[in-house]
């Protein structure tokens, strides 16, 4: 097929992000300037975000490799916002970093481009390409403060395990190809119409393993706490928000459209994975004394909740996924944003141990309010966006009559409350003589601070008045290709 202007326009966000990456790279080659690189990145990402409005007029549009539909646009918007937040955080975080600072933005932009490709892919080739483009720069980002041992360890750990997962993914794709002779999802759907053989099922299962690793679904979650703990704040933020959103979007697309992923057997496996992920994630989080590790385990649990949407795969599923992803991402950005801001003025390891946060409220009330709101939102308490997300998940389970899943969500939430509350109350307990770390005095007027406050305000606003978000997600999910 020929590429027309329409197609180019539809791909504008991706092109803009890539162009920004090139500009940043050339800028670095010409003259290093930290704030300059950050500004170019932010401008580029904003342009890409704005171009989504134009793209929406063209949707849904399908190319052989990519589908520009509601799901892709929804995911793209989330990824771009997350990337923007990470760029602002990175600027605050790297200000005091005594090494080359500018390359971080380059890596961030490349990874963002990968996320855009991944979430729009309708072909196993683009899926693989996108996934690798998300992950490769992340290795660099996680090991960016490589003089700190933990950071390097995080980067290498993620690299090795991710590579292992990729081989599973590739092998699964090979099996699917061997069974059907197609690599595009539409082709897979057609050729599998008459039923799917054992090899095809095995292939589908291996693909889920590969993607499940990125989402840190139990039992492929072992890397998560170490990587979250070791990686520098902005990189972890990106890993926890943008990359997970992108991977989940493509998993949703696969499960919703390809029949190989809709067999009862696979659904059963997914259901078990969902329950185990929720419970294990929450249980392991209980004993953590490091905030970043705790958030890592809690993100495992959250993707367990999200998996229920995939298991049920009908009715409100897509809408619920969209809403949950929006709320999860905002909350994650807020929580990790605060961690990053507290850590930023120091070289060395991030301030993540819980005792660093003791009595933070009496020194930085608004920053603490942000962290409190995000913790409440993760726990799914009313007046926060997280409640709307949890409401959708439970509604979905009740509608489909999956009582085991609903029960697991409730048990998981109850366990979750325990550690979210522990974090929250720590913030308010003042004790003399504790080791203290702090955000800079003027944190609130810096870009990172504004972003964090914005995230918290949005969490509250969407918690109180979620109608616009729900409408938006509904419009997006109604414009999704290949679901029927």
């Amino acid at each position, binding site marked *: 097929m020929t590429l027309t202007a329409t197609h180019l326009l539809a791909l504008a966000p991706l092109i803009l992000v890539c162009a920004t990456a090139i500009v940043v790279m050339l800028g670095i080659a010409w003259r290093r300037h930290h704030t300059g690189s950050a500004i170019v990145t932010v401008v580029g990402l904003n342009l890409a975000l704005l171009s989504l409005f134009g793209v929406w007029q063209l949707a849904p549009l399908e190319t052989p490799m990519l589908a520009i539909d509601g799901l892709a646009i929804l995911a793209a918007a989330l990824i771009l916002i997350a990337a923007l937040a990470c760029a602002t955080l990175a600027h605050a975080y790297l200000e005091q970093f005594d090494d080359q600072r500018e390359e971080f933005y380059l890596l961030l932009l490349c990874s963002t481009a990968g996320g855009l490709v991944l979430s729009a892919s309708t072909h196993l080739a683009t899926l693989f390409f996108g996934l690798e483009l998300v992950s490769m720069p992340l290795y660099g980002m996680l090991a960016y403060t490589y003089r700190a041992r933990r950071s390097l360890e995080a980067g290498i750990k993620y690299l090795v395990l991710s590579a292992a997962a990729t081989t599973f993914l590739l092998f699964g794709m090979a099996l699917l190809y061997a069974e059907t002779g197609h690599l595009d999802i539409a082709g897979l759907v057609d050729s599998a119409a008459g039923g799917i053989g054992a090899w095809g099922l095995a292939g589908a299962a291996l693909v889920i393993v590969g993607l499940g690793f990125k989402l840190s679904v139990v039992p492929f979650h072992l890397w998560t706490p170490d990587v979250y703990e070791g990686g520098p704040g902005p990189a972890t933020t990106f890993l926890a928000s943008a990359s997970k959103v992108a991977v989940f979007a493509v998993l949703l697309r696969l499960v919703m459209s390809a029949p190989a992923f809709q067999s009862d057997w696979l659904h059963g496996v997914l259901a078990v994975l969902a329950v185990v992920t929720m419970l294990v994630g929450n249980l392991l989080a209980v004993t953590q004394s490091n905030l970043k590790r705790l958030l890592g385990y809690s993100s495992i649990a959250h993707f367990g909740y999200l998996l229920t949407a995939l298991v049920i795969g009908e009715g409100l599923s897509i809408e619920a996924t969209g809403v949950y992803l929006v709320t999860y991402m905002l909350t994650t950005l807020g929580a990790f944003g605060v961690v990053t801001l507290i850590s930023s003025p120091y070289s060395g390891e991030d301030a993540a141990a819980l005792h660093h946060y003791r009595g933070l409220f*009496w020194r930085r009330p608004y920053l603490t309010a942000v962290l409190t709101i995000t913790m*409440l939102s993760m726990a799914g*308490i*009313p*007046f926060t966006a997280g*409640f709307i997300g949890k*409401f959708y998940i*439970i*509604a979905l389970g*009740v*509608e489909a009559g999956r009582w085991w899943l*609903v029960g697991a*969500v*409730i048990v998981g*939430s*109850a366990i979750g*409350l*325990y550690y979210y*509350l*522990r974090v929250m*109350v720590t913030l*308010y*307990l003042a004790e003399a003589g504790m080791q203290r770390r702090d955000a800079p005095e003027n944190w609130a007027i810096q870009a990172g601070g504004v972003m964090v406050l914005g995230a918290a305000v949005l969490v509250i606003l969407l918690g109180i*008045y*979620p*109608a616009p978000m*729900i*409408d938006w997600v*509904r419009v997006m999910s109604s414009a999704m290709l290949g679901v029927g």
Partner: protein
Amino acid sequence: MTLLWLILIPFIGGLLCWQGERYGGMAPRWIALATMLIELLITLGLWFQGEYHLPGAGTASDAVRWSMEWQVPWIPRFGISVHLALDGLSLVLIALTGFLGMLAVLCSWNEIVKRVGFFHLNLLWILGGVVGVFLSIDLFLFFFFWEMMLVPMYFLIALWGHSGSEGRTRIRAATKFFIYTQASGLLMLVSILGLVFAHHANTGEYSFEYATLMQTPLSDNVAMWLMLGFFVAFAVKLPVVPVHGWLPDAHAQAPTAGSVDLAGILLKTAAYGMLRFALPLFPEASQAFAPVAMTLGLIGIFYGAVLACGQQDVKRLIAYTSIAHMGFVLIGIYAGTELALQGVVLMMVAHAFSAAGLFILSGQLYERLFTRDMREMGGLWGRTGSLPGFSLCFVAASLGMPGTANFLGEFLILFGSFPVAPWTVAIASFGFLLAAVYALLLMQRVYFGPPKAEGLFADLDRREYLMMLSLLGLVLLFGLYPQPLLDTTSAAMGEVERLFTAVSQSSTLLTGAP
């Protein structure tokens, strides 16, 4: 709009308190006091103006009638709206909230010295959430407030509470309270959603509307499960015996204001929830479940009373007596006759006053003695001014002495329940005996016996005197002349009774078939 303001005033007042702290420690207290006074005055104004003697049931239609109503769409996707409505029951309970809110502010006047602004923010937000619970008749909104009010309560216990003996820290108590209530709340959310989807399956429309969902026909099995979801959430909050574990700890560790709110108002939200939602939404299932619920109530009466006798901590003792009193409330609710339901309302109000009085008194004792352990008290009569006298009055109220509102409440409950469940009533009557035992034990251990130390303690000051006198006055007022209260809630209670007892007579009323 008045109804919306009733909810908003505490929230706004809370924010003002928080910011008011920069003008000194007294500013938040006065702001909080003024806020609750406005709340109370508005409610009383509505009481005197409004008409709560609604036309008798069955005259016109089956539609639920409210004295005031306010509705705006909120989340149209699911048919959720901000729907507030007021009837006699909610009016009484909101007035109670306003009054106890003022007391809570007053009793922490000297007790709370750290982070005064933030304390009052939490205090007022609890009250705002409670008012929201009493006013919402959209099930989503109801759940919203139901869960929301736990967060400030958690902070109140965790940050300003007392750390007791080993293993009983305030944070542990707060966490226990939060997890108990939140997890059971999620069960209620599942039930609400189950009801909504059952309605959706029937009509193809989403609605969280109280009046609409009441019309949903349900199979017996489904109705029972959904009812249980509601019941568990309310039972934890009430609390009913197997799920009461959070209450003694929370009370013992909470600051006085927290205990007053907890015993006076938060427990009442559970009884309110049963009266407003569990019974009317699932009358058949509730009817079938009534024997179990009454048995649980009976167990609660004896369990609470027996354990209260063995406590050393004053506040734990009062907490266990709350369990016993709530056992009576549970029996009354599931008896479902109008007389019993009226008794429940009176009992709720009376218990709020007497428990609040006892908790405030134990707070005042603590401010003088710096202990709540009864082993270190004794012989305080005559050494603490008029404190023992007031204690005697509230203890008498708590054991149900005729002349106090508690007596009337318990009497009406037992009298009203007798035709329905004579044996239950007969057994429950022995609860009075135990009530006398624990009440007298409390008096004996604290105020009589050999003194543990010499010296006089400060008498009550004017603020404390005022609080005690007003509480005592109300206990006696409703004990001697409860008619205005009963008149206000009779229509609402009659409605509950009509729905509940209609089960055995006809089935058309239930399914709402015209």
